[in-house]
């Protein structure tokens, strides 16, 4: 993957498959660290499946669909001497609190740090692909914050699909504007 934003797109797609109703994507940036958290309230995974998802060569029938997504994210984070973790509660064991949480911490100053890339493009792609699912996105940087909550959009739009061209275009511009704002700002710290 050439950009971390592509890993985000890829990993969040797993939450779609896990039939989540809400996917939270958080990016927290400091001067030298980037923390990525992707959390969903989907069906979760049992312990033995969870152990397998980090190993690209662990493919049994039940985990084949997990594939390379998680190993690729883990690689891009560990090559910066960062840390990676994945926690999950399956819905059978935890009927009221199931879901999966992926946390990746990157060292931005490391020579093997992959650029973040077009995060707005990934968020728009996720919404376009699964307009019935809710996404909460927040990217905090020393220069300010970019945020989007599809539940707030839905409150305005009623039953109009988020995948309608007019809405997708609006979301894309909305995020781009926010990114321009923080790019032009100076660090508040």
């Amino acid at each position, binding site marked *: *993957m*050439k950009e971390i934003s*592509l890993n985000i*797109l*890829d990993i969040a*797609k797993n939450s779609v498959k896990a039939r989540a109703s809400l996917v939270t994507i958080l990016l927290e940036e400091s001067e030298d660290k980037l923390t990525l958290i992707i959390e969903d309230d989907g069906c979760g995974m049992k312990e033995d499946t969870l152990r397998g998802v980090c190993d690209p060569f662990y493919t049994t029938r039940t985990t084949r669909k997990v*594939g*390379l*997504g998680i190993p*690729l994210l883990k690689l891009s984070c560990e090559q910066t001497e960062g840390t990676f973790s994945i926690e999950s509660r399956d819905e059978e064991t935890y009927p009221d609190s199931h879901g999966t949480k992926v946390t990746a911490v990157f060292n931005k100053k490391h020579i093997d740090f992959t650029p973040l890339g*077009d995060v707005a*493009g*990934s968020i*728009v*792609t996720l919404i*376009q*692909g699964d307009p019935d699912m809710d996404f909460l996105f927040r990217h905090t940087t020393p220069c300010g914050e970019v945020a989007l909550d599809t539940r*707030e*959009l839905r409150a*305005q*739009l*009623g039953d*109009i699909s988020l995948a*309608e*061209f*007019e*809405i*997708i*275009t*609006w979301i*894309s*511009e*909305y995020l781009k*504007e926010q990114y321009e*704002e923080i790019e032009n700002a100076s660090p508040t710290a």
Partner: protein
Amino acid sequence: MKSLAELQAIKEKMQNKVALREGSGEMRVVVGMATCGIAAGARPVLNTFVEEVANANLAGKVTVSQTGCIGICQFEPVVEIYEAGKEEKTTYVKMTPDKAKRVVEEHIKGGKVVAEYTFAKENA
């Protein structure tokens, strides 16, 4: 600066149009968006289709959607086009945003398959 309140106005404008769209969808553009597609550059290809179709006011006629891996990872980004009344789909391979623009212009608007980008041609 954009505000969420703008969505109200968009919604009102759309309500009539959406009613008209029911039952349309003469053409379906499907972009492969699994790990293989994403790594090969499918995201900008998808976003180009969405933008170009919206700009050409073809929303009533064309839908753009995403799918998983269809098994020809080495040819990603892969885009399939399904047309009403046409039995065979068209499979475009190794797509880029520029190729996507040409497909919108010549195939979606003009009705003529861009043969040189198809799987049939690439695999011949």
